[in-house]
């Protein structure tokens, strides 16, 4: 997990294994096992029900999804998966979402790493003001700054010629700040758990503070950084409100583009489900692949 070749010593935080802490050496009583089986089964059903609907409906012909719900499709078809690409320009929206979410994630993580490092390793005036201010933006209702933000972007555009309004750049800028507070907060916790001896060693070896950050602290904090990246990506991938007003034909993202399947004359539920599945797969797959890191990152960072 922590291939910290540059680090002088393995970093304990990153090494913390993701495994259960057994409650007790004794075998749990039978009633516990029973209730656990029932509870977890019900919960699994609840969680998977929509997933089943999504997958099965996406393989149904249109008459199946517009009539009474059927558990078992009357026939399987992959037509919805072919049609989704032509009903709306899904590929283009996909690219847009990928660019926007990808860029927002990279920027957000880099900026969060810098900020968290400063807060974690230095004492300076205004530190508390900074953390409190940044964190409190989490509670701003998006609707309050929706319209003002457009005004600012448009004015920046008029003054400097940098098109933010309606461009991917504007959306990237917006989204990266959405995930920034939580990311900074989590990384502060994570960086704090990376022993300072490591920095010192690096400093003694002749690295500057930034060298220490990138050659020691960052490698030791990979799980935390991955966790933050996953969070930032999901935030950007799923946002609807700003995307619906800030994008145009060329820059529309999936969140808005999916509305295109409810056309003037028919709601193509099978195509909607197929498209939903297609747009979910990258995030869900990535998320599940990285969930080990996520738990490790949260364990060491946020919930310490």
């Amino acid at each position: 997990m922590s291939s910290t070749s540059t680090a002088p010593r393995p970093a304990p935080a990153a090494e913390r294994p993701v495994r259960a802490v057994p409650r007790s050496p004794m075998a749990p009583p039978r009633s516990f096992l029973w209730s656990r089986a029932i509870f977890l089964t019900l919960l699994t059903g609840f969680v998977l029900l929509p997933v089943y609907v999504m997958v099965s409906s996406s393989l149904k012909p249109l008459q199946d999804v517009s009539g009474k719900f059927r558990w078992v499709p009357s026939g399987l078809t992959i037509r919805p998966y072919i049609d989704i690409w032509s009903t709306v320009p899904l590929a283009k929206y996909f690219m847009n979402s990928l660019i926007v979410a990808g860029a927002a994630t990279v920027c957000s993580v880099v900026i969060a790493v810098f900020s968290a490092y400063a807060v974690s390793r230095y004492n300076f005036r205004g530190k508390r003001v900074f953390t409190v201010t940044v964190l409190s933006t989490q509670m701003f209702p998006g609707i309050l700054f929706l319209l003002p933000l457009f005004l600012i972007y448009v004015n920046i555009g008029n003054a400097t010629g940098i098109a933010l309004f309606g461009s991917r750049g504007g959306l990237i800028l917006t989204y990266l700040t959405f995930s920034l507070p939580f990311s900074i907060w989590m990384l502060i916790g994570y960086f704090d758990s990376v022993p300072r001896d490591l920095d010192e060693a690096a400093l003694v070896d002749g690295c500057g503070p930034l060298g220490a950050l990138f050659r020691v602290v960052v490698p030791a904090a990979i799980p935390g950084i991955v966790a933050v990246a996953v969070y930032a990506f999901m935030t950007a991938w799923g946002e609807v409100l700003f995307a619906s007003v800030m994008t145009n034909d060329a820059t529309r993202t999936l969140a808005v583009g999916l509305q295109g399947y409810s056309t003037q004359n028919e709601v193509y539920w099978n195509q909607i489900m197929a498209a939903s599945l297609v747009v979910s797969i990258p995030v869900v797959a990535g998320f599940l692949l990285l969930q080990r890191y996520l738990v490790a990152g949260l364990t060491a960072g946020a919930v310490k």
Partner: protein
Amino acid sequence: MRIRAAAVGAVTMSLALAASACGGGSSSGEGSNDSPKTLTYWASNQGASIEVDKKVLRPELDKFEKETGIKVKLEVVPWSDLLNRILTATTSGQGPDVLNIGNTWSASLQASGALLPWDAKNFGRIGGKDRFVDSALGSTGVQGQDPAAVPLYSMAYALYYNKKMFADAGISKPPATWDELVADGKKISKKGKWGLGAEGSNLSNNIHQIFVLGQQHDADFFTAEGKPDFTSDGAVAAIKQYVDLMAKDKIVAPGNAEYAQNQSLSDFAKGKTAMVLWQTASATFKSLGMEDDEWGVAPAPVQSGTPGTGTNVNSMVAGINMAVFKNSKNIDGATKFVEFMTSDAEQKILNKAYGSIPPVKAAQSDPAFNTQATAALRETLATSAEALPQVAEESQFETAVGTAVKELFADAAAGRPVTTASVKAKLEKAQQQMPTK
């Protein structure tokens, strides 16, 4: 103290930015001809999908480019986003040069001052006001002011019925009055089939339907001075009559209460419902796999007698208008584009593609507008259609009253009684939500 200095600095900077943002749209001034070679055009979604629209419009825009050398950047904006996009464009001053608007929004958008007024001079540049049909011009802005937009496509409501379902129920001719419609609907509404389709959760559609019924009950929803008047006896009776189609007459399926995405049309095409009141639905039926000879079209019903003016109005003036953004950087080009799109030749091509009626008189003579589907619509527009109230608060009216009707449908669907009192209470609430000037 440094913290304070930093804080003061930040606040000052915020205020400076805020002040510069206050400039808003005005900074770009009143329009110019600085970029005469390009135009941005927001089209509304008229066809079966956005892609269909692009295919219809692109060749025409290329034709325009060949004629004038002006390149038109096209964006087809979905209805769900269009008004928001226009509002943001208005607020920020950053919008298209030319755009389509729902004609009922004309007065509301006119009040914002964002659209180029079509005075005599501007109308002169596109061939004069009298090229257009009067009823269409009636829905382009507040009476007595220069129109905020120019009619592009006209539509009217009509009654579409399934010929086979009518024959099976032993009905020989389409209903002409509401009583007949209810009687026919009851004959059909059994065994999972229903008489009439409705879009209970679609606010605009609710407004269109109850506006016409309001006219038939002699209610206008706004006083002559433009003040909201939602609670008149006529208005209450109109809305109750509409919701009663589901609540009392039971010829509308309760499930229609949550329809908002034209599901009633696909129900009709599948033979689940026998009738719909709709505007220019023929192209949609075709795309849903219903042949032209399977359905018939008749004028929308009235209370009694035959469609006409006054209380015998049986449709709103539906349609799309074309407007020019006042701070366009290519006012001349924008006007030229409007001239092109409203030219006789283009009107024929476009309205044929969308199944609508040209609001340009000369274009109506084309035989394509004399088929079964279009003749009834054209006739309705000419003789018995009325424009929605041309007041600045029209869009708020659509939201407030449209929501009231939606909630009443929800009550009806849930089996709760819909009474004159409950209708009136909802309308009173809607009226109080309207802005007070």
